[in-house]
């Protein structure tokens, strides 16, 4: 061997002869990095500074998120704007950590085969989205996105909507029992033409509120002067007769990135941290 004559300065020989020592060393050593990088995130306040306006998803938006995940949209679209000039020009303010705090799982993505979507809400009309899903190349000739024509044909399966909300509540999302009990009325009300019906007024009251309490009693209270972003209530796919997968997905997309009210001239990375952002 080429290193003949060298003596290893550490007593490695005993490690190689002893399976117990070898496995214990390996098992401990490979655990360190992950623990140091992941665990403090739950304890250090600046890993997810609080920000007013970020609320849990409505039942319809929640179903929209599920379709986003089911169709694998996150594989070609990111939802994480980086703090660069070109990204600000193209997509808007950089994403804050708290803006995805209700995303189990996160959908930041890792690839932009298609454009960034973190602040897509309100950028295009519902009709544009519907046409774009049906046939992307009819509105963006260069697009390589698949046609998603089945979304407007498929009636939304709401079999587990309540189960989804209950699961999220268990995981810490501040849905109240009232929110969960009214899931069906809320879902239908949001996908209907806005006539300010009683159901729609109740839906607004539930998701435009300033106080959120989770299952373990943690309270998130926004200042009284803060007006939460108004809900989008309409027949998103242009057809109020039924609630389709298209309704849910467009409701989700039209909400993206609209919760935080960014003020001009405020440095959301440094200035606000430690003041408003602290609970």
């Amino acid at each position, binding site marked *: *061997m*080429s*290193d003949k004559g060298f003596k290893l300065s*550490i007593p*490695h*020989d005993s490690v*190689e*002869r002893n*399976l117990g020592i*070898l*496995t214990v060393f*390996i*098992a401990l*050593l*490979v*655990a360190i*990095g*992950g623990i140091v*990088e*992941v665990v403090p*995130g*739950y304890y250090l306040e600046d*890993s*997810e500074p609080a920000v007013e306006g970020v609320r849990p998803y409505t039942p319809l938006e929640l179903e929209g998120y599920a379709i986003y995940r*089911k*169709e*694998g949209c*996150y*594989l070609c679209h990111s939802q994480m704007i*980086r*703090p660069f000039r*070109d990204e600000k020009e*193209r997509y808007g303010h950089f*994403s*804050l*950590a*708290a*803006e*995805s*705090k*209700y*995303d*189990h*799982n996160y*959908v*930041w993505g*890792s*690839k932009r085969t298609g*454009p960034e979507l973190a602040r897509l809400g309100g950028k295009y009309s519902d009709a544009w989205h519907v046409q774009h899903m049906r046939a992307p190349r009819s509105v963006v000739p260069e*697009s*390589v996105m698949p*046609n*998603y*024509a089945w979304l407007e044909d498929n009636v939304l399966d709401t079999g*587990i909507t309540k*189960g989804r909300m209950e*699961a999220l509540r*268990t*995981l*810490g999302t501040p849905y109240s029992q009232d929110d969960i009990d009214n899931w069906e009325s809320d879902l239908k009300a949001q996908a209907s033409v806005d006539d300010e019906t009683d159901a729609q007024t109740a839906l607004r009251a539930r998701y435009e509120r300033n106080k959120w309490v989770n299952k373990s009693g943690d309270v998130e209270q926004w200042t009284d002067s803060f007006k939460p972003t108004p809900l989008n209530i309409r027949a998103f796919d242009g057809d109020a007769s039924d609630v389709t997968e298209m309704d849910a997905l467009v409701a989700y997309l039209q909400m993206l990135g609209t919760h935080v009210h960014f003020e001009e001239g405020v440095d959301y990375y440094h200035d606000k941290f430690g003041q408003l952002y602290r609970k």
Partner: protein
Amino acid sequence: MSAVSHQEYDYDIVKVCVVLAIVLGLAGTFFGTFIASQLAWPVLNFDSPYLSFGRFRPMHTNTVIFAFGGFMLYATAFYIVQRTCHVRIWSSKMAWAAIILWLVGLVCALITYPLGITQGKEYHEAEWWIDIILAVSWVLYTIVFVMTIKNRRTSHIYVALWFFLGMMFMVAYIFVFNGLALPVDMTFSYSAYAGVHDAMVQWWWGHNAVGFFLTAGFIGVMYYFVPKHVGRPIFSYRLSVIHFWSLMYLYVWLGAHHLQYTAIPGWTQSLGAGMSIALIFPSWGGMINGMMTMSGSWHKLRTDPIMRFMIVALAFYGMSTFEGPLMAIKSVNALSHYTDWTVGHVHSGALGWNAMIAIAALYHMIIHLWRPMHSTQLMNVHFWIHTAGTILYVTAMWASGVLQGLMWRAFDDYGNLVYTFADSVAAMHPFYAMRAIGGALVTVGFGIMLYNLVKTMQAAKAEEGQQTAATSA
């Protein structure tokens, strides 16, 4: 201590894994070529939910990583552990159970993905109940491996086995913790983590699936098959000790470099970048040890396609473990992140390093478990077609990735963005077509390999028949 006779080893289990790895390698690269073609020619989505890119992409990644890579790792682990410990596998029954569960889990995954049943975590898409099947398989695999080492008739545990042990422990950790989820029903579960935390856990998983499944395990393969095949001892024992422990320690920290300039804490990003740069040394330690082991046998490159696969694999390993740290540097990542450069980088590792060293190990095992290959010429064709496909793929993605990154950040003299996003998509088309052709070449290579395997198995069977006829006559 003398080696036990070969009849005492359980090779049936290895043979089955070898065949499965090659069949699934062909399937996985075919899926890859299909989705690559969809990006070049979107009409190939056929307006079908079951074939659309978003649902089909995990079919490719899971088949190549966990089916092809997985069965290759099961095959080599059971082969190497018996041969270097001079003892029969501890429990053949448990090993069979591990393999059957792995196959069942993967088949379930490949059925559920087109149906849109997914956890939505990259490279960990299988829903919670499939996760459990796969995790049980992995634990059984680890137990069989560790117990076989425990029964060894040699005094020292060979270096290849250290790497396999590292892989088994770490993959168990990351798979279980990243998979923690609250099921709603059989088709849906929510990750236990949200937002920034989920992102950190996901990339702790994502990068260490690369670092341990695709690196530590494959380095273990390299440490057995390279010295064995060229008939020379490992170049430096000391280097293997140092690079083993440093690799085990450092790889774990790298996940954060997938999240540069995102909303995760700055210190985590910097730590991820720093550790990535440090990792060049242990990575290159492995590459140098492998290459220098071949030194003195270079003349065999003229005649031996397996050795060609090995040397090119190590060259790609060295290249992509230099490229990775480069891309982890924040200012480089600012350009490369979200672009095809990442895809190119992954495939220089996956097609160049992982596939080539796996193919070399598989050919080596076929020759030792059945008989010499049906056709050396076809192995040679496989080598060249795979190399050409890989280079075509990787260069296409490098060019398209850098172009994308530069187009996105281009400003004109008046401070306006020069290109729309759609402009950058249009500019990618020739590269996407080129990538699809590269992928097709790799797929054809796997087809040739499978044909060669089938022919070799048929020849082995015929020879066996002749032998029994001769002995009974």
